[in-house]
């Protein structure tokens, strides 16, 4: 008794897998862009500049990490904007001093994010409401709550948080360390646990995942909770950076988070990609601003260049991976 012999299939070789990896493509793009930056501004090569860049990217990167988790399950999470806004005003209205207070604030931010995520998760996973619609509703409610807590930008974030989290010690910002740690955790979670694996499975084929024994609704619920916690962390980092609260703080992150996810090679139709890519995607977006500034692009057309670069970055990834795979086929 033996199975039918199998034709050998293309695409098994590692070279293709490597180039098809969106995170890698985004990384290459980042390096190229950084090169351009350095050409305009030699100061770019200093460690301080780099840490600054990482610092600036931290909130967006964390928000994008959360978004990635949801996108992997074939969802869109708009509640991100609301969560960041709430956390931002929370940090400014209820500052807690010292390291202990900082830790407590951080935990509270994660909890707030997780709780909001749980609401979205309930609606999407257990009530079957389309993610974009459900999270739109949640986002609007959160915006309202943020306005209730603080009706104009202001308040002051605990000094410990705003100084310790953004300071540079020996040319290295602890914030970046925290972000790296967060990403390591998220990566482990997505790639090395059953929860993560099932999120990929759900994103690709929810029906098959269910028939394979994956508890689809429950896992999807947790995706939103985790994503919410990431937004909470993003809000925390944002507060540390701006040292103040703003009931509208989350809005600018909405589209940018999707841009980071897409730049990082995660498929917006689910099941493919990862958080590392989104981290790099967020860094690319932040770097773009610097490069355009350094290149002295007329301010009227900075938007045009940003939009064009965004499309080009995606195109670049496509072309390289296509070239790689066609070279592979020979």
């Amino acid at each position, binding site marked *: 008794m033996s199975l039918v012999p199998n034709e050998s299939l293309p695409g098994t070789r590692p070279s293709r897998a490597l180039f098809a990896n969106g995170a890698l493509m985004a990384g290459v793009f980042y390096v190229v862009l950084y090169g351009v930056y350095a050409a305009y501004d030699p100061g770019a090569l200093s460690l301080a500049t780099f840490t600054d860049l990482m610092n600036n990217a931290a909130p967006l990167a964390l928000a994008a990490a959360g978004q990635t988790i949801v996108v992997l399950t*074939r969802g*869109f999470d708009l509640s991100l904007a609301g969560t960041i806004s709430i956390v931002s005003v929370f940090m400014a209205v209820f500052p807690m001093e010292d390291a202990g207070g900082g830790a407590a604030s951080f935990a509270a931010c994660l909890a707030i994010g997780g709780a909001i995520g749980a609401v979205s998760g309930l*609606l999407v996973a257990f*009530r*079957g*409401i*389309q*993610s*974009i*619609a*459900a999270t*739109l*509703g*949640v*986002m*609007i*409610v*959160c*915006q*309202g*709550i*943020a*306005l*209730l807590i603080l*009706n104009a930008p202001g308040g002051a974030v605990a000094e410990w948080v705003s100084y310790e989290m953004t300071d540079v010690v020996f040319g290295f910002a602890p914030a970046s360390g925290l972000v790296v740690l967060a990403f390591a955790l998220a990566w482990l979670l997505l790639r090395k646990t059953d929860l993560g694996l099932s999120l990929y499975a759900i994103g690709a084929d929810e029906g098959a995942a269910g028939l394979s024994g994956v508890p689809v609704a429950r896992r999807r619920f947790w995706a939103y909770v985790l994503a919410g916690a990431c937004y909470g962390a993003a809000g925390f980092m944002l507060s540390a950076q701006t040292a103040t609260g703003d009931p509208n703080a989350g809005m600018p992150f909405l*589209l940018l988070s*999707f*841009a980071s996810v*897409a*730049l990082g090679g995660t*498929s*917006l139709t689910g099941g493919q990609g990862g958080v590392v890519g989104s981290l790099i995607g967020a860094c690319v977006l932040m770097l773009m601003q610097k490069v355009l500034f350094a290149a002295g692009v*007329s301010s*009227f*057309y*900075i*938007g*045009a*260049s*940003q*939009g*064009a670069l*965004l*499309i080009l970055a*995606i*195109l670049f990834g*496509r072309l390289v991976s296509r070239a790689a795979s066609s070279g592979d086929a020979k």
Partner: protein
Amino acid sequence: MTVEATLEAPTDTRRAARFSGEALTAMGLFALSAGMVAASPLISPALGSWSQIYTILLLVSFLLVISFGQGLVILTGGLDLSVGSVMMLGGVLTTTWIGGDSATFWGVMPVVLAFGAGIGALNGIGVAMVGIPPFIMTMGVGIVTASLALGYTGGTTLGAAPPPLLLLMKGDILGAPSVIVFVLLFCLVAWTLQSRTTFGRKVYAIGSSRRAARIAGVPIVSTTILVYATSGLCATLSGAMLVGYSNGATLRMGDPYLLPSIAAVVVGGSSILGGSGNFVNTICGALFLATLESLIAASGLGQGWRTILSGLIIVGALLVQSGWISGVFASVARRVRGAGG
């Protein structure tokens, strides 16, 4: 209490449901909107009148036009994030190229619309021919468009609304407000285009399964480009209408319409993943959102509570759609009946 366990099964129970879920959603949203208008005198005695309905219809007209295009794009499984910018461009070009001049209106307005459709087509080309994800392509094109408009105008948009547009938004036709006549006509044409034409059917097919559409010989590239071009056209038209309404353009006039254009489609019950949906649903979704806003505006609550309330009502409407509320009612009713029997 005894349960009738065995019922005589009807011979052929396998019929299509009399109303599809979509139709039920549309009817539900419409009823909800009508109910809200009817109940609005409770909030303020002057409400519930024709003038409120007219205001709602007038204000929803921009959203209806723009979300038709958005709905088509969503139907193909895409998303058009450039509608806000293209709408703004439509407004800016209308005031700068035509301005308060009736004479050039009929000659130049089509050029403006074609320009908007062209930007939409660019989205379509990027998506269908180059394979860039719609999200990124339209976001990028939106940013570029906004920035080019900024550069073109230098930040100040001169010019006023062409008189025919003022007439459209503020005048009467045969005793009826012309904007309402226009919107009704638009909806009829749009619905026909989506549900009753070969083009519309191809759009459904592409959204339902791109691969199956390819094998079935549906011209995917040209249809997709046309869809995005239509979206651009609608956004431009909507921008021109807004110019007629507010007698001028600004560079941010389209921004407030992006999320609602998506919300109208999705709240209407169409799938964000494409392949299903109906323009009637979108109309009901838009009406629902507009009525809700007008009611909440009259509520006298603070902005925080107002925002919370509008979010909660959207979530509530979605829960109704998902059958949760009716399920809860049914189970309560069953329990009550069970207790009675």
